[in-house]
């Protein structure tokens, strides 16, 4: 069912015991180094303020507190910005996935003149650096009075989500055996009938995975939201988090880490769910050679 080619893993040949023990230790140290920032974020979020401000760090607090989370949640605009983000993300994802699915069907099931050009467009857009598009997007949105509106951000996010979704969904559709569809057509279904009854249910997990990944991208986005949404109370969660640092001279690190944890949770949870399905999509074909 996994459309994007997850290569079959061959069991590596058994090596000498001693060598492997050494590598295991290296890997565990590496694990500790890589995961440390995440650990430190969570650990700090639950630490009493005196332990945060201390010069000697406390690794695990014996007196965990949720007071930083209370502070973070009560920081102005937290809930408003969460709401804004959810609106932006849900509209972006719904519209993009619907449009992208149609295009993905075209790419996966039809050969047509201009197909290659369309693929170039879909891949090429993903390569455009966000920073390079700020100015024209801002000026264009300004001339339609869409600066400082959620609509402006939704429209902009579609430039990120659409190409990516087309490409990923195409992979999922390709993963469905042609024979199934053909069998349905032999049984007297029309192409549309075969599509609705056979293709759609099979591609549903792919649709969900792509939507979830699109959700993560939109949830995490910062640059466009920062530029388009100028007034406080109209921003997204990542912009809220970025301003947290600058509110006063002495930063409330505990609350900042609590806010960071809260911002990260939806993205992390969703990512852990869909990572296996999506991740290899980026380079799927290349792995196959």
């Amino acid at each position: 069912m996994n459309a994007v080619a997850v290569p079959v893993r061959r069991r590596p040949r058994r090596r000498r015991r001693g060598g492997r023990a050494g590598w295991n230790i290296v890997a565990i140290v590496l694990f500790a180094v890589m995961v440390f920032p995440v650990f430190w974020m969570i650990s700090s979020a639950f630490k009493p303020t005196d332990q945060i401000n201390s010069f000697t760090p406390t690794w695990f607090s014996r007196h965990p507190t949720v007071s930083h989370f209370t502070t973070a949640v009560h920081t102005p605009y937290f809930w408003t910005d969460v709401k804004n983000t959810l609106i932006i993300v849900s509209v972006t994802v719904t519209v993009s996935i619907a449009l992208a699915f149609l295009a993905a069907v075209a790419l996966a099931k039809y050969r047509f003149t201009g197909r290659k050009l369309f693929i170039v467009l879909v891949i090429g857009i993903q390569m455009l650096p966000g920073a390079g598009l700020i100015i024209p997007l801002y000026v264009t949105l300004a001339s339609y009075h869409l600066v400082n509106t959620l609509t402006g951000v939704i429209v902009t996010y579609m430039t990120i989500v659409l190409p990516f979704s087309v490409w990923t969904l195409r992979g999922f559709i390709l993963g469905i055996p042609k024979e199934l569809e053909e069998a349905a057509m032999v049984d007297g279904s029309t192409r549309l009938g075969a599509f609705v009854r056979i293709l759609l249910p099979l591609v549903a997990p792919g649709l969900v995975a792509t939507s979830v990944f699109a959700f993560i991208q939109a949830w995490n986005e910062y640059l466009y939201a920062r530029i388009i949404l100028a007034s406080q109370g109209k921003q997204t969660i990542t912009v809220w988090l970025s301003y947290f640092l600058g509110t006063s001279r002495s930063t409330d690190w505990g609350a900042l880490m609590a806010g960071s944890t809260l911002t990260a949770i939806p993205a992390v949870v969703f990512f852990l769910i869909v990572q296996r399905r999506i991740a290899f999509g980026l380079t799927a074909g290349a792995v196959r050679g």
Partner: protein
Amino acid sequence: MAERVVIAAETTWSRRRRRLTWGRVARGSVPYWLILPVLGAIGAILGYPLYRLFRLAFQHYGLEELIRHSGQPVGLHNFGHVLHDQIFWHTLVRTVIFTVANVGLTMGIGTLIALLLVRVSTVVRVLLTAGLVLVWSMPVVVAVQVWGWMTNYQNGVVNYILTELHFGDYFQHNWYGSTFSQLAIVTTLIVWGALPFVAITVFAALAQVPADLVEAAQIDGAPPWRVFLDVTVPIIRPVLLILTSLSIVWDFGVFVQPYLLIGQTHITPGNYLMGIYLFEKGYFDNDYGQGAAISILMLLIVATLSIFYVRKMVRIGDVD
């Protein structure tokens, strides 16, 4: 009478043929109808701004013009201004060095981690992979805040750990004191965030390397590094090249990490990267015309850098 029959037959025949042709045309147009919504959306929200970008680049377009919605044509003035700007060239050189360092470290360490994943026991592999996926899932803005906290001057835990491990006296060491140090911290943050993607993808590619080829090379007495360079690398080369070119494009256009980690107040022409230079010139100074000129130069550079990746992916998409 016979004539009539013939004519009638001909009419039906030609009608049927026409109907068939229409049907074929209709069916042939299906993919176009399917891609039309995406094309329309992309055209409206990206195509038009890109067209605006090219017009803006040849206009004087400031705040006043933004309000009036019309710029004054100035020809190549914006480009001339940018290309005569010392800061542009310094930023370009700095960004190239920054990109080379970031991509080199990401690809080098990422590949080493992938090789490590092959050599460890299953339990450790699952553990390390889980850790990598966790890091991968962290939103960039969150990662920046966490690194900001870890490296803060007052009591950042990085300073504590380095001091405890006897790397020297890092008590209240300011990581944001010099351009080099600032960009080094940004590099650490970016490489940390990019490693999981590279390591896991390369690991997946390594699984495709036929074990008998490696064994044959080993039996022939080739040392491990030769086996890696002469057997493994050629097979995983496509993946390495794609990852490298993706990393180059991402790191060259990087914005969020340096902008937030160095901090808006500490951003100076002395530590500009391309994305930031563009942002400061165009958006903050409200000189959209010049910003557009810089954008075009930047897009041209990135387009050149990404040609390899795009071509490779298009070939994949075209074959399927």
